[in-house]
């Protein structure tokens, strides 16, 4: 294989034969070496050029995320000591804002690992460039989501019990198994990528990493799909719905991560400015100046995947809604969620449908036509926001709708009999929910800073300021630029 740098990927059909294989043990130089954290790289190998944006932004965003994470932990401690009456949740509505965040994070993490693993399996496609980053982002998201779940427990001090007693009939207990396996597989995946000794197990590990998160997402769906008590939950369609949600959120978050994290590699910033398609306000990447353009094959592939998964998710969602509407028992709750349930229809139609599906679809299309990565980034962010809105409607809204205690009878009595639960999330719940995002962000940020996760052109290894091929269009010049490596 020649032209091992990213540039060769752009040669279209040839990808399959001779394109990029970042994981080649003979090409470790495509990544910065292990043990050179971001705050040392700028000195070490920026080829004498200072990064385009200052490093203090990296520390600032890490510090803010750490603060938010601490605030969430403090809120959790406060809830554990004083009691859950400080939250807006109650007997009828037992899972609220924290769980919406947790589910979004966990599903996004599962989806991100699926995309990353498929990059591992199809090592010659542009997706391969996302395997390292994707697996780290995936586990960061899972860590954030799980932290939220633990923060919200009524008795977090009893957590060790979950490892002593295991009920396989419980989706939660099965999930513990899937979560632990997830981290083990991500560890294996990274190990196989960073250590040439494990190179021959890469395919096996790749398959594991592809299937496991799909199982995980399915099992997360089973938490709700198997709840007989609520007409709004009990549905086998929740399994594909959660899988498609995971794929959509996962590809969105990976697209965001890919666009942002590439700015962290000095090789990208060290080269001359490329005016086309920059992110105006980089979130994760402080000294981003010229992230890959919209024409970069990995960006292209990720954005197409996002469009595909989003369409699939919308289709499954449509089927789910139709099944709710056509099932006489569920018609009440469907009406509540879609038409007259107060905040829930608003969030569904505006938050999920408009902001979460239609707008990002248009933006992805516009991004392809106008070749703007900023469109892609905004679209990915909107998909995640739409996911939050959707899960809020689906998880909280269904609980807010009163349970049919005795079908056919009108039941009144206690505060939770026949009444819509008016859920007013408190500050504590928001802190706990947001801290999950902060923890995921912080974990990913530190990992991107410390580990060699994003590829860089071979040219930068030698500290020269030769033009890299990361985001130049496919030209013979870019091919030849990478040739000296061989």
């Amino acid at each position, binding site marked *: *294989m020649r032209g091992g740098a990213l540039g060769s990927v752009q040669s279209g059909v040839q990808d*399959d034969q*001779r394109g990029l*294989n970042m994981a*080649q043990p003979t090409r470790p130089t495509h990544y910065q070496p292990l043990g050179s954290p971001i705050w040392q790289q700028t000195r070490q190998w920026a080829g004498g050029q200072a990064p385009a944006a200052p490093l203090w932004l990296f520390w600032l965003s890490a510090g803010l995320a750490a603060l938010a994470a601490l605030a969430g932990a403090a809120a959790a401690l406060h809830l554990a000591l*004083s*009691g*859950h*009456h400080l939250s807006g*949740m*109650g*007997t*009828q509505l*037992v*899972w609220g804002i924290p769980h919406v965040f947790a589910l979004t994070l966990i599903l996004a993490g599962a989806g991100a690992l699926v995309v990353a693993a498929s990059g591992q399996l*199809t*090592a*010659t496609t542009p997706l391969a460039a996302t395997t390292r980053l994707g697996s780290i982002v995936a586990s960061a998201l899972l860590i954030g989501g799980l932290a939220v*779940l633990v923060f919200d*427990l*009524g*008795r*977090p001090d*009893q*957590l060790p*019990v*979950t490892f002593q*007693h*295991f*009920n396989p*009939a*419980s989706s*939660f207990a099965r999930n*513990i198994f899937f979560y632990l396996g997830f981290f083990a597989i991500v560890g294996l995946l990274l190990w196989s990528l960073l250590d040439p000794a494990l190179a021959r197990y890469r*395919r096996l590990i790749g*398959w594991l990493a*592809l*299937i496991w998160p799909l*199982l995980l997402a*399915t*099992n997360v769906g*089973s938490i709700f799909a*198997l*709840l*007989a*008590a*609520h007409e709004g939950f009990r549905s086998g369609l929740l399994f594909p719905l959660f899988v498609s949600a995971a794929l959509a959120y996962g590809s969105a978050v990976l697209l965001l991560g890919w666009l942002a994290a590439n700015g962290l590699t000095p090789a990208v910033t060290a080269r001359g400015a490329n005016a086309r398609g920059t992110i105006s306000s980089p979130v994760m990447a402080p000294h981003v100046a010229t992230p890959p353009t919209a024409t970069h094959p990995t960006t292209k592939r990720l954005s197409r995947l996002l469009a595909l998964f989003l369409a699939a998710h919308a289709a499954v969602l449509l089927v789910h809604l139709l099944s709710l509407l056509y099932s006489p028992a569920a018609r009440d709750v469907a009406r509540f969620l879609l038409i007259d349930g107060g905040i829930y229809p608003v969030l569904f139609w505006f938050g999920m449908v408009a902001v979460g599906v239609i707008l990002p679809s248009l933006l992805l299309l516009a991004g392809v036509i106008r070749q703007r990565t900023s469109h892609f980034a905004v679209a990915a962010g909107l998909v995640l926001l739409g996911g939050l809105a959707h899960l809020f409607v689906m998880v909280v809204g269904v609980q807010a709708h009163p*349970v049919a*205690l*005795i*079908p056919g*009878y*009108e*039941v*009144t*009595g*206690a*505060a*939770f*009999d026949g009444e819509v639960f008016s859920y007013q999330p408190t500050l504590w719940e928001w802190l706990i929910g947001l801290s999950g995002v902060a923890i995921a962000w912080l974990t990913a940020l530190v990992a991107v800073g410390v580990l060699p996760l994003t590829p860089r052109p071979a040219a930068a290894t030698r500290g020269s300021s030769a033009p890299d091929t990361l985001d130049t269009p496919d030209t013979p010049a870019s091919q030849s630029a990478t040739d000296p490596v061989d």
Partner: protein
Amino acid sequence: MSEDASATRTLSRRRFLGRCLGAGTAAAGLLLAPGVWLLHGGGAAAAAADGEPGPDRTRSSPRSPRWGLLIDTQRCSAECSACIDACQEENGWPEPEHPQQDPQWIRKVTVRGPGDSERSLPMLCQHCQNPPCASVCPTRATFRRADGIVLVDKHRCIGCRYCMIACPFQVRFMPQRPVAEASPNHPRGKGAAEGCTLCVHRVDRGQQPACVERCAADGHGALLFGDLNDPGSALSEALRDYGGAPLRSDLGLAARVHYRGLS
């Protein structure tokens, strides 16, 4: 060259999708297994047995009692709350300050049925034979005893509230504020799930649940407690002679609390 070899090993799209399908099928089996196990009756029984050493006393034999309750809605009066008072005194839960959050092990509900007939009835844990709360509990804190009483082993409860969302009757609670002082009859604490125990401490002494006793003394004698496994018990006879049905039989819960006078 090794690089060429690696190039030929790369997957075509068709093979990739094919393998995805195969692997997905295998994976689906892995997910199905626990469900089949649950179907086999493993859920609640195993939740009680839990692999602890000693003789297996949790599998019920036909001769062991199976406690049940019959609630006669034609006798129950909307004004009466004798059962609730008795339960509060017996088990030490206070009057709910915030009805949306605080526990009410037993509550009175008004049921308006077809033909505008209005009934008042107590709603409490239905002690299902197939309790959804027990099958979803990750640590098997919620379990069904051999005699059919559904209990929470609070030593194991982590406060995830999965059982609360799984219960079709909303009769499971989590004390959300510190418990001032627990009754010696029933230890309870903030953050651990709880619900009606059918006064298990009294039943084990050979007594009737507090609500049943009080209803007979101060109320209207609307509650009848007994052994469903004993065809000669007053409960079995009453069910045979006058009828009575569990709630939500459509969900296959096989609840042990029966109501008479609803439809």
